[in-house]
């Protein structure tokens, strides 16, 4: 393997010393700091950004392109009725504390995640599991209560990683996993250090040490990058600075796509948004390109429905809601709002929401809709908007992969209640034929676009800024992760 050779060569160079030896440590900055280090009991994506695939591994895992690859389970068999999954685990895997990883650990991890008192943020992923059985040390059998086409996908999530029962007490401070890196140190408010796991069961990574540094302020991030205090900034928060990095030969800019559909969420139960004409009017009042240019400085792909454009089943429906203020005014008049109306626009902290919100407010004002903007912290947003449904409009990026199913939940915060859609979604879950699934998915995308449930703005892009010599970084973000196992320096 090229990578192995490289690692060996660098190790050799280290002993010989001097000359042009490649660096074996890296400092990667990201915006958010994990609140603690247990990926199985919090939604905070920052936990996965540090630990996923580096420290913790699951039975399956996401590859960079979003496909599902074998993880700790090297192979599996699925019974014909789709109710039994038999996984064969990799051999010779040990946790970082030296204990062996076997089927009992898998059973423990999955049972813990789906238990009554589980604090798992994505508990629904495990809903269809009826029982987990450790057949022998290397074999685990999952029995489902109903067929679930996305089981392997669900098991790849960071919330489904395998943890050691012995370490569970202190997992929030001392995470013990099976990955290629071990947890070394956490300076709260500043950084987390990982060290190479010399006993790793898989292919050894090139890097010996990885520093995750947390820089929430975009300005500070820019300055740290320019001063070369950090080597990589994953998810660089200020797209306006990208031209400066592109112009600077010291850096490379990688723009990848994410699973984040950025939408103008609309409270479908609230008047006047319960009127489909009003929602359609808003869809025509919004100039997506202006939002992408103004809020994201050109980064992002316009979307016309709640689906990721890089997904094979995506349908481009942006034409259904083209920018046409005249039409928007006409639709509003038809709905009985010639003079417009007033509503609230509640914005969470990310800049796509804050800046996008100001632009949308100006665009809606053009057709007579006045919005009262309030900027909220995430906790307030969750309380007021997500839980309390006390809002007219909000902007948020839905970063969970493949989440069109949320439109089948009438109690979800945008309160879309369509029997037709719910039937389609039920049919989709039971359907395993790829072609029929595609057809169903297309209909679902079309339906929510026709009903203009939400304003569909753009697919969030993720810019990564790196020193010119860094190789092997993930370009796209199929899940929140910074997989460092394949990263190396090239001189």
């Amino acid at each position, binding site marked *: 393997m090229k990578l192995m050779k490289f690692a060996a060569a660098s190790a050799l160079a280290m002993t010989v010393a001097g000359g042009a030896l490649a660096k074996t440590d890296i400092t990667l900055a990201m915006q958010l700091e994990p609140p603690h280090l247990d990926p199985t009991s919090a939604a905070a994506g920052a936990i996965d950004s540090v630990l996923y695939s580096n420290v913790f591994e699951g039975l399956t895992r996401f590859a960079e392109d979003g496909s599902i690859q074998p993880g700790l389970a090297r192979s599996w068999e699925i019974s014909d009725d789709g109710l039994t999954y038999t996984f064969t685990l990799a051999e010779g895997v040990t946790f970082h504390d030296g204990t062996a990883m076997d089927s009992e650990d898998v059973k423990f991890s999955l049972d813990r995640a789906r238990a009554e008192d589980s604090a798992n943020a994505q508990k629904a992923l495990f809903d269809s599991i009826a029982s987990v059985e450790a057949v022998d040390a290397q074999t685990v059998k999952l029995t489902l209560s109903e067929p679930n086409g996305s089981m392997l996908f669900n098991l790849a999530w960071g919330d489904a990683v395998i943890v050691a029962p012995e370490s569970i007490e202190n997992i929030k401070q001392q995470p013990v996993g099976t990955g290629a890196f071990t947890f070394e140190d956490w300076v709260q408010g500043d950084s987390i250090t990982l060290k190479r796991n010399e006993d790793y069961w898989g292919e050894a990574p090139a890097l010996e040490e990885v520093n995750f540094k947390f820089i929430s*302020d*975009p*300005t500070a991030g*820019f300055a740290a990058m*320019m001063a070369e205090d950090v080597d990589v900034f994953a998810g660089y928060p*200020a797209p*306006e*600075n990208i*031209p*400066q990095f592109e112009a600077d030969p010291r850096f490379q800019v990688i723009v990848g796509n994410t699973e984040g559909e950025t939408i103008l969420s609309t409270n479908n139960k609230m008047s006047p948004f319960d009127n489909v004409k009003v929602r359609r009017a808003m869809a025509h009042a919004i100039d997506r390109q*202006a939002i992408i*240019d*103004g809020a994201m400085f050109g980064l992002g792909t316009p979307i016309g429905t709640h689906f990721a454009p890089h997904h094979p089943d995506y349908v481009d429906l942006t034409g259904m809601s083209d920018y046409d203020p005249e039409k928007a005014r006409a639709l509003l008049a038809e709905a009985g709002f010639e003079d417009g109306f007033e509503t609230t626009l509640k914005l969470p902290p990310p800049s796509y929401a804050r*800046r996008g*919100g*100001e*632009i949308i*407010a*100006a*665009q809606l*004002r053009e057709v007579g809709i006045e919005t009262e*903007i*309030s*900027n*909220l*912290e995430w906790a*307030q947003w969750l309380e007021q908007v997500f839980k309390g449904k006390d809002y007219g409009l909000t902007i948020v990026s839905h970063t969970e992969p493949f989440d069109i199913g949320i439109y089948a939940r009438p109690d979800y915060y945008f309160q879309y209640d369509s029997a037709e859609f719910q039937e389609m979604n039920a049919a989709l879950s039971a359907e395993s034929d790829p072609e029929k699934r595609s057809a169903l998915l297309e209909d679902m995308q079309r339906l929510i676009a026709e009903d203009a449930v939400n304003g569909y703005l753009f697919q969030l892009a993720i810019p990564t800024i790196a020193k010119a010599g860094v190789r092997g970084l993930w370009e796209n973000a199929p899940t929140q992760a910074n997989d460092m196992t394949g990263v190396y320096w090239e001189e």
Partner: protein
Amino acid sequence: MRASRNLWLGGLLTAVFSLAAVISFAWVPYDVTKLDIGAKLLSPSWAHPLGTDHFGRDILSMIMVGARTSIAVAIVAVGIGMALGVPLGLAAAARKGSLLDEVIMRGNDLIFAFPSLLIAIMITAVFGASAVNAIIAIGIFNIPVFARLVRGAALSLWTRDFVLAARVSGKGPVRISAEHILPNVTNLLIVQGTIQFSLGILAEAALSYVGLGAQPPLPSWGRMLADAQTMFSFKPHLAIFPGLAILLTVLGLNLMGDGLRDLLDPRLRRAQR
């Protein structure tokens, strides 16, 4: 004389920004609620003397309208401080040494003991970020300033002959405070009010800089700076002009305060010189 020079320069700066705020009600070069993404981040030119921001809005117009926000927030906050602080200070002085005096002065100490910016952040976190809550947060910290000032000045007035004469003629403490004490502390109030006004402008800028002041689309100087954060490294004009606006307004008010003190309160002149 330096006193009048301070007053002149301070008055001039204050007048410029007040005038800008007043004019902005009737006319601004460009509508600040209209965005023009195509004209974003333009450097200063004849069409846009101070350039445009990241949404293509004219920065001169935004500074004019922003002056309105800053001045309004600061004036109302100082007003709250005076409206509550002055009666409290008068009452404490009239009942010197009483329980009321002790409670008022301890209450003042208590408010002083709270880190003001932190409390302002907490207030806006509880009640939501808005200009009104920023006013309340800043106003609260103005109360003890005026209460202390008035109490101190009133205490010495209470020993003066004309107050004694009023007491002998049978006037109650409330009437004496209103008719004899208050008129004699107005000069002090004007001077301190000017200083508090400038501190209010700074506080408003800091609050809206951290996103807790006036909300968009209403422009505010602090938020213009916050918005410029990531862009001033390649477009310095975005940060320089709003920052200068704050600096010059605060400077103007401080100079004017000094000048007024020299003019209105001859007793203080010696201390200052």
